């Protein structure tokens, strides 16, 4: 008996009970649709997170003050110390660090921003002139501040698009004066939108010379540098650049044991890896939940195959009488179960892919930050083979029961 014969028999058996076959198939169809769709959503989230992090710059390295153990061996925790200084930044910029393009200090300050009767909250970032280069910002209008602005503590700011929209609406912001924590600042430039929604929107920024921030905004906290941001020559040289920065800073801080360092480096790559592993876990959990419905569908197949085998006992008897071996009967019913689940799986993939494709067109989803589902070819292949395997797994017991029937008893069955 060849495969073609077996498939013809299976089709015959399935067509005999169209409604029953369709309903059983529906169980697998729904399961596979759920797997495809949920995994696509997980993938979509992963793609979205990656894109956001990539837009921050894949070659960016952050240096945070941390674990200042020199103060009596008490660890003060991540980002709590104030061990970084402007001289550290200068050292990274001037000493031999071939894989580092530039380093900038960052001083963060919160504060209410007002313009006319509009007010808005955005963090104010104090930094130096290399900021657009290091963080990869383009100017849409006006200009960035100069070294002279930094040296003279000029009260000038450059705004991100989100801030502009919230404060100015359609008014041209260049040359206008805004107030941050009741101090006046002149807007000299506007960044082009970088995109990215949700966490860490990069358009919700106000950038000012670091000296200005120290002088007018951070107040009593003094000349604190909350982090140093450096850019490597490319994403591929991030690791070397990290080593160079570590060496320079350890040397400057007089620390010989790297484990005792009073600063900590984190690259965009590290963040990306963390986010990716979270997204992968999310995808797995979603897939596993959907997988449960596949198992339920498989049990449905087993159930129906048991009924079919009992109903067709006489047919099995006839087939055995005219020379079908155990294997022939086994294969017949196994293929029937596999066609049922495989067809259900194929239809489920089609429905799942269609839903994933149409999801961004649904207004409620389009207007939210819900990730666009991404159907990966591997999940399609996997879903198909898993559904066929489910037919095989749940079909074995009923098919074996059919194959083991005694011909005489099967023929006598009414």
């Amino acid at each position: 008996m060849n495969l073609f014969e077996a498939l013809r028999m299976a089709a015959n058996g399935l067509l005999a009970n169209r409604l029953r076959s369709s309903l059983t198939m529906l169980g697998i169809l729904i399961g596979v649709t759920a797997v495809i769709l949920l995994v696509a959503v997980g993938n979509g989230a992963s793609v979205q997170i990656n894109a956001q992090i990539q837009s921050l710059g894949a070659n960016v390295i952050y240096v945070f003050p941390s674990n200042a153990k020199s103060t009596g061996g008490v660890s003060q925790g991540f980002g709590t110390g104030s061990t970084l200084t402007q001289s550290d930044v200068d050292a990274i910029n001037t000493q031999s660090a071939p894989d580092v393009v530039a380093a900038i200090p960052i001083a963060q300050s919160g504060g209410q921003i007002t313009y006319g009767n509009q007010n808005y909250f955005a963090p104010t970032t104090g930094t130096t002139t290399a900021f657009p280069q290091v963080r990869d910002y383009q100017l849409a209008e006006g200009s960035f501040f100069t070294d002279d602005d930094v040296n003279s503590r000029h009260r000038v700011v450059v705004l991100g698009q989100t801030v502009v929209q919230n404060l100015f609406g359609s008014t041209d912001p260049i040359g206008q004066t805004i107030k941050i924590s009741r101090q006046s600042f002149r807007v000299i430039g506007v960044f082009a939108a970088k995109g990215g929604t949700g966490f860490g929107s990069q358009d919700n920024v106000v950038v000012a010379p670091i000296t200005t921030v120290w002088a007018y905004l951070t107040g009593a906290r003094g000349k604190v540098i909350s982090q140093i941001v450096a850019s490597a020559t490319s994403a591929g040289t991030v690791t070397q650049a990290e080593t160079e920065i570590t060496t320079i800073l350890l040397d400057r801080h007089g620390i010989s044991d790297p484990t005792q360092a009073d600063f900590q480096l984190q690259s965009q790559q590290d963040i990306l890896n963390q986010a990716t592993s979270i997204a992968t876990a999310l995808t797995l959990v979603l897939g596993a939940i959907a997988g449960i419905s596949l198992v339920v569908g498989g049990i449905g197949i087993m159930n129906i195959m048991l009924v079919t085998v009992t109903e067709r006992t006489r047919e099995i008897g006839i087939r055995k009488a005219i020379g079908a071996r155990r294997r022939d009967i086994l294969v017949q019913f196994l293929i029937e179960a596999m066609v049922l689940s495989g067809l259900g799986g194929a239809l489920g993939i089609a429905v799942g892919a269609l839903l994933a494709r149409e999801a961004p067109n649904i207004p409620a989803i389009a207007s939210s930050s819900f990730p666009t589902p991404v159907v990966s070819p591997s999940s399609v292949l996997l879903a198909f083979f898993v559904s066929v395997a489910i037919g095989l797994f749940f079909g074995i017991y009923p098919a074996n029961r059919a194959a083991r029937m005694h011909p005489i008893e099967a023929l006598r069955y009414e």
Partner: protein
Amino acid sequence: MITLERITKTYRMGKVEVPALQGIDLHVGEGEFVAIMGASGSGKSTLMNIIGCLDVPTSGRYLLDGTDVAKLSDDQLARIRNRKIGFVFQSFNLIPRTSALHNVEMPLVYRGGDAPAGEGSRTSRATVALGAVGLADRMHHQPTELSGGQQQRAAIARALVTDPAILLADEPTGNLDSASSLEIMRLLAALNAEQGRTIVLITHEQDIARFARRAVELRDGRIVRDEKAA
């Protein structure tokens, strides 16, 4: 063709052993047309199951076409059934929702790829078999679209398509009206007379047994009469 030596078969029903056959010696030669008769409970169904290789005897020796089949495994018996025996049942036993042609092809499907070469394709052999029983014009009909007599003729075509050593007919007219019965028995008699087909017919009806050329009567698991027709 068929040689049964001291065949016994005992069924176990709970703790009670029920002897169905108690030492059957029977020889059926090539080209014979034998009717096995007996009342219900005489053991004729058991005998037919053993002759048809659907069951194995408790003891004794059974040679079918030179092969000792008393001790074969299930799959080996299936192979023997496929190649050497053609079954015709009382209730026709065609596979539902399957055309007469496909039903007749079925034994060839299970025969696998090792059918002798030059015998033609399955479909053409099945068509020939259906033609031989006068059903060529209805071969694409499903069993439910055929009359009882036509279904039984399709079943005979299915039994013949593998060119078996014996044709085993178990009450082939039991579910038919008298006109169809006559038609079927004439067909069987003709197969025996014209093609020399060996036929073993199981029946409890004298009228039907008359078509055979030898009558064997069973009672309580033993042969009590074995005579050739005049």
